[in-house]
């Protein structure tokens, strides 16, 4: 994996700028996409890099959303402090849940992850005075960003704000996965026994990344609360856990940018295939999943890789003695 910065990495940002300039009517949708990208990025740390398969990541999104939402409604409405609070709360919950969940694997881990999300769903439903229950938490508003930019009704400020948060998250995650810590996560994914044999405290590292991933998911959730000015129970739904997993896998897990590819593709596919009938969409989504799982495991980025490999097999180039 190249350590240096590649020009290709500017592409998502060019796309976002282009959206802002040329398609301003799509900015609210763009903001939702950005939030999902951040969420998927956090899952990539867990799933793509460390190999922890979970169906319960929405729990941390939801914790982040409700934390910042409740705080904002109660008067602590600084935007960045709201994000920080959401991140902290989610990271702490992630740490505590991780202590139990990560002792298991396979089906049990999947199931426990789901159970955590369901527990929080029930809690949110139960404590209606705080969360608004099924009606949702309404009337969330945050102070102007940097004291200057107030949320406008066209969604321009919201979009720019979300893009800024995405940039920060990406820089952080990118740095993390390229660091020795991040590389050791890949080792854990590939062969945990080998990593133990070189002195790595595997459980500890898994716990750390679980908590960090939960924290970033919490940022996404908090961002969602702030830009939508609303938090509904769906932030703790199994459906959301499933969606973020699908989005990541379609783009390609463990590649950092899979989230950036998979999210717009998913949203676009949903827009096209769900025309009028959500049941129709479910059918096609199911089919796509089966196809991806059977034939295209690396998602879009994986397909791109195998195409490149086939191409270079046809046209062998000089073997580059370059970066490892």
């Amino acid at each position, binding site marked *: 994996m190249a350590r240096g910065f590649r020009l290709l990495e500017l592409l998502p940002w060019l796309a976002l700028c282009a959206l802002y300039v040329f398609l301003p009517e799509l900015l609210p949708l763009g903001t939702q996409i950005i939030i999902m990208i951040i969420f998927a990025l956090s899952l990539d740390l867990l799933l793509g890099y460390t190999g922890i398969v979970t169906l319960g990541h929405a729990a941390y999104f939801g914790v982040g959303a409700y934390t910042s939402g409740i705080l904002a409604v109660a008067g602590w409405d600084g935007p960045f402090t709201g994000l920080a609070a959401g991140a902290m709360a989610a990271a702490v919950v992630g740490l505590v849940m991780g202590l139990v969940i990560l002792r298991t694997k396979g089906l049990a881990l999947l199931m426990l992850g789901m159970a955590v999300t369901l527990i929080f769903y029930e809690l949110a439903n139960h404590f209606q005075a705080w969360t608004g229950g099924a009606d949702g938490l309404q009337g969330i508003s945050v102070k102007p960003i940097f004291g200057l930019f107030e949320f406008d009704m066209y969604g321009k400020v919201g979009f720019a704000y979300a893009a800024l948060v995405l940039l920060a998250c990406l820089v952080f995650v990118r740095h993390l996965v390229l660091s020795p*810590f991040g590389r050791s996560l890949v080792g854990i994914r590939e062969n945990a026994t080998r990593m133990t*044999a070189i002195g790595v405290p595997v459980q500890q590292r898994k716990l750390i990344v679980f908590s960090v991933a939960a924290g970033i998911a919490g940022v996404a959730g908090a961002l969602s609360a702030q830009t939508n000015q609303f938090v509904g129970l769906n932030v703790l739904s199994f459906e959301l856990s499933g969606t973020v997993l699908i989005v990541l896998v379609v783009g390609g897990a463990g590649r950092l940018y899979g989230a950036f590819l998979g999210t717009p593709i998913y949203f676009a596919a949903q827009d096209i295939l769900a025309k009028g009938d959500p049941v129709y969409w479910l059918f096609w989504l199911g089919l796509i999943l089966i196809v991806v799982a059977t034939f295209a495991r690396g998602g879009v980025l994986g397909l791109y890789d195998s195409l490149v490999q086939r191409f270079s097999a046809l046209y062998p180039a000089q073997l580059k003695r370059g970066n490892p």
Partner: protein
Amino acid sequence: MTVQDNPVAAIETTNLRKKFGEIDVANDISFRLEQGGRHALIGPNGAGKTTFVNLLTGQVKPSSGTIHLNGRDVTSLSTDRRVRSGLARTFQINTLLRRLTVLENVQLAVLEQRRQGASIFAGKTAQIEAADAAYDLLERTNLAADARRVISDLSYGRQRLVEVAIGLALKPSVLLLDEPAAGVTPADSHHMFELIEALPKSIAVLIVEHDMKLVFRFAKIITVLVQGKVLMSGTPDQISNDAQVRDIYLGHRNHA
């Protein structure tokens, strides 16, 4: 004999026992590996050699008894902590990061040995330096030509060599080699012999093996394990001349 006359052993087990159900897989094993030693552990199949290695590394917890590493009681220490205390092992079946390159495999071990494996900041320099150190090690072990090749592209025999190289990267004081020759073709095995002979004198090496050529070429002391118990320990001459040992290997009893 005063304490000073008896140097601290690299590894010392005292009355080590492991029961699986009713069976004593390790039966009252008291064993000593000396500092800088060249020690081989042999025995018929099912003798409990692998269990013993797993007891030493911490993968298996003993039912009773103690294990000391350089004088320190490590009986209740986890595997990774024993590694950080200087105990490295290779696996009987290659346990490598198959999708990564040889260099990356060794580099990760170097980073961990330098206690930099968990660093999130200032990582770039650390990784470059670790890669350099890893490359140097590969040169010393004649694996440099394969440095940038992915493990799964290597022959099984070459992979076995990488196992040992990773062990060395950890700069251990004790190295456990679990059947290093297993699965290595006769054509490749001289590489393995050379590698083992070139192991630094400061490292205490315990080799578990079936390949008697390797054992007799390499070991100064041999311990024979049968059905979980130590039958005897001695020099290669003593062992090869012992009637009981000959029985076991020529098959009057315990033909396993």
